């Protein structure tokens, strides 16, 4: 659970930093009602962006908890992880490509170029579908080699983690598809917001995948981290 606590500590620090800027030390009972007392807020960030940020924090929590469970199980003596198909490297590259393409789509739409945005979006969507298919192929390869979820917990974890990540990407593809359908008609401001949201989500999923892939493929020993965190208790 060290990972979970670290992640949670990070979130808590972020929340405290944010709260510290919200005037929690003010004495509202002394504010006697003149409008001048009210601090003027800057240009508001669109609600959708904050909503997506919160959602990504929730998904990150989900994945961190899974990784925590994974690392707790890893410490037991009979741990026997499946070999990682080389295909995963290709999949990772494809996902990087998707993320870059969506980034370019955002830049294009900021310059008002719908056509460039459309083609970048198409590349991003296509690469993402390719990633999902690649993950399914990797499953097939593993299953063909006899590594099935029911065999042992390590295999089951592999399928579960990749499946949950993949499902979140598929959910993102639905949003991306909806953005694609309004590419021609929607006002540029709206389109830009939609694309920015998609791009952020993709960057997040890419970062999450890199962490997951790294953990699954190399099972990095995190003993030093645990030692560091439990040092005060010794």
């Amino acid at each position: 659970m060290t990972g979970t606590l670290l992640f949670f500590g990070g979130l808590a620090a972020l929340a405290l930093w944010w709260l510290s800027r919200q005037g929690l030390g003010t004495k509202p009972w002394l504010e006697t009602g003149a409008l001048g007392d009210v601090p003027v807020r800057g240009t508001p960030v669109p609600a959708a962006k904050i909503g997506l940020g919160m959602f990504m924090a929730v998904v990150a929590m989900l994945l961190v908890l899974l990784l925590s469970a994974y690392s707790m199980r890893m410490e037991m003596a009979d741990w026997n992880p499946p070999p990682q198909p080389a295909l995963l490297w290709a999949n990772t590259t494809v996902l990087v490509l998707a993320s870059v393409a969506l980034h370019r789509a955002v830049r294009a739409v900021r310059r008002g170029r719908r056509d460039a945005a459309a083609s970048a979006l198409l590349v991003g969507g296509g690469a993402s579908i390719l990633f999902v298919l690649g993950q399914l192929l990797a499953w097939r390869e593993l299953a063909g080699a006899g590594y099935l979820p029911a065999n042992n917990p390590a295999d089951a974890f592999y399928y579960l983690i990749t499946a949950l990540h993949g499902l979140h990407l598929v959910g993102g593809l639905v949003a991306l598809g909806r953005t694609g359908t309004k590419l021609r008609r929607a006002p540029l401001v709206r389109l830009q917001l939609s694309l920015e949201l998609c791009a952020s989500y993709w960057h997040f999923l890419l970062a999450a995948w890199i962490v997951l892939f790294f953990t699954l493929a190399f099972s990095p020993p995190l003993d030093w981290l645990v030692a560091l965190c439990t040092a005060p208790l010794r």
Partner: protein
Amino acid sequence: MSELAHGAGGPIPAAEVPEMELPHPHGWWTTYVFSQDAKVIGIQYSLTALAIGMVALVLSWLMRLQLGFPGIFSFIDPHAYYQFITMHGMIMVVYLLTALFLGGFGNYLIPLMVGARDMVFPFVNMLSYWIYLLAVLVLVASFFVPGGPTGAGWTLYPPQAILSGTPGRDWGIVLMLLSLCLFIVGFTMGGLNYVVTVLQARTRGMTLMRMPLTVWGIFTATVMALLAFPALFVGAVMMLLDRLLGTSFFMPTLVEMGQQLRYGGGSPILFQHLFWFFGHPEVYIVALPAFGIVSDLISTHARRNIFGYRMMVWAIVIIGALSFVVWAHHMYVSGMNPWFGFFFATTTLIIAIPTAIKVYNWLLTLWRGNIHLNVPMLFALGFIVTFVNGGLTGLFLGNVVVDVPLSDTMFVVAHFHMVMGVAPVMVIFGGIYHWYPKITGRMLDDTMGKVHFWVTFLGAYAIFFPMHYLGLLGVPRRYHEIGETSFVPASAQDLNAFISVVALVVGAAQMLFLFNLFWSLRYGKDSGPNPWRATTLEWQTPETPPGHGNWGRELPVVYRWAYDYAVPGAEQDFVPQNQPLPAPTHIAKGEATA
């Protein structure tokens, strides 16, 4: 009231918040059923939660019948008994309390109290309710499948939850886990709405430190729930896979009836960590909204500003953060490194500090207040007493050496029913009596309300006080029947019978409450827009009940905090948050220093 909002002090546009596009309903279905209006969704959440809560109430009656009069009701066999306790616990904690506080009160109150027209994502909000309803229906369906609902205990500990000896092993557990997953998905949709609405849609002048504590409580609890529910989600999905695909996340190597099962290598303790990483914050997910609501009830009905508002806000935030690092105090008897036991006992006891600050502040708010002993106030006072009681036994159980002998006894049952059963339910009732006039435009009947309060309050004590004693005697929880036991005197059975009779009476009093809800809808006294003469924005709406979009043509502008009661020199004994005329400054400052 709208005059107050827009008239005096010249027209000040609420320009800081961009106007949102509201989805307008086009007929009966989109107005009352598939509504995207947070107020309607809040009412839908509340009614659904109350309905499923009634099921859980009946289940508790059946359990008490068995415990009080063992052997008389032949249809309550051990299997059925386990199913009753499991479903009672899960429904009450998740499907009633969480859904009612966050989905019900949250949806209705947040937009009104922060001066918004609606939640920021109305469609997602509507979806949230329908997925919640689906989760409830899946849960209810488990009563009707072969083998009935699961009887694994509300904690659903593996491996026994999915082994063949446990009732509902075939279908019940699958539906339960599925229903929990659905609930979490639905809640996440709603929760994102509540948080972003508080962050983004507050009206002009509504700084965080001018928000009523109700909003602070619900806001913090929602953030916690968003971070805690994923743990339950992960646990539920993994157990579902163990049950359906034969994976071994939680299932160790097992021999059942002489046969080696196909499972092997899983860790049951892992589930306990995941479950309680959700389970302990869950206590505060229920308690923080209750803290917030009760602060507002006390301040309004004692006509006093809340004592130590800043401390109250800080305490809510600190309790929220601390509640994530105490989970393993539910696992003292599962076997753990003694250092961990020490760590978790310490963090558990530290939570008592901010909690005690809140209790003292409530008492100091009441001190020399003009206390109106109406029904919402009675329930608020009932909450404080009950919560202190339940909290004190928490200090016992938080210590490892005391917990070990008391673990799995009736003492624990009495503790958590006091602290997170009776206490939050008191607040729910108080809140409903308080806001019903805003929701319907009519007052709930006072006499019925008082009968309801006294029977519930005294009854709850008659039920749970003796239960502590049973626990100290060593009467175990979750036993269908204890039979002849050397260390439990026969008189314990008489006490059990007494508790059961009282439980039936208290349950019946809730029927009176339900009757009151419907009776007053038609025959209740007309309430007017602000019957409690309260300061917060929801009482200042131009219409009662508030119309679509809440605020008529223009959003309200907030000039002051939510607790200007009995301000010296003011015309009335309350100054609404959107009233621009400043209170005389010298008096306001003097009040603050006093």
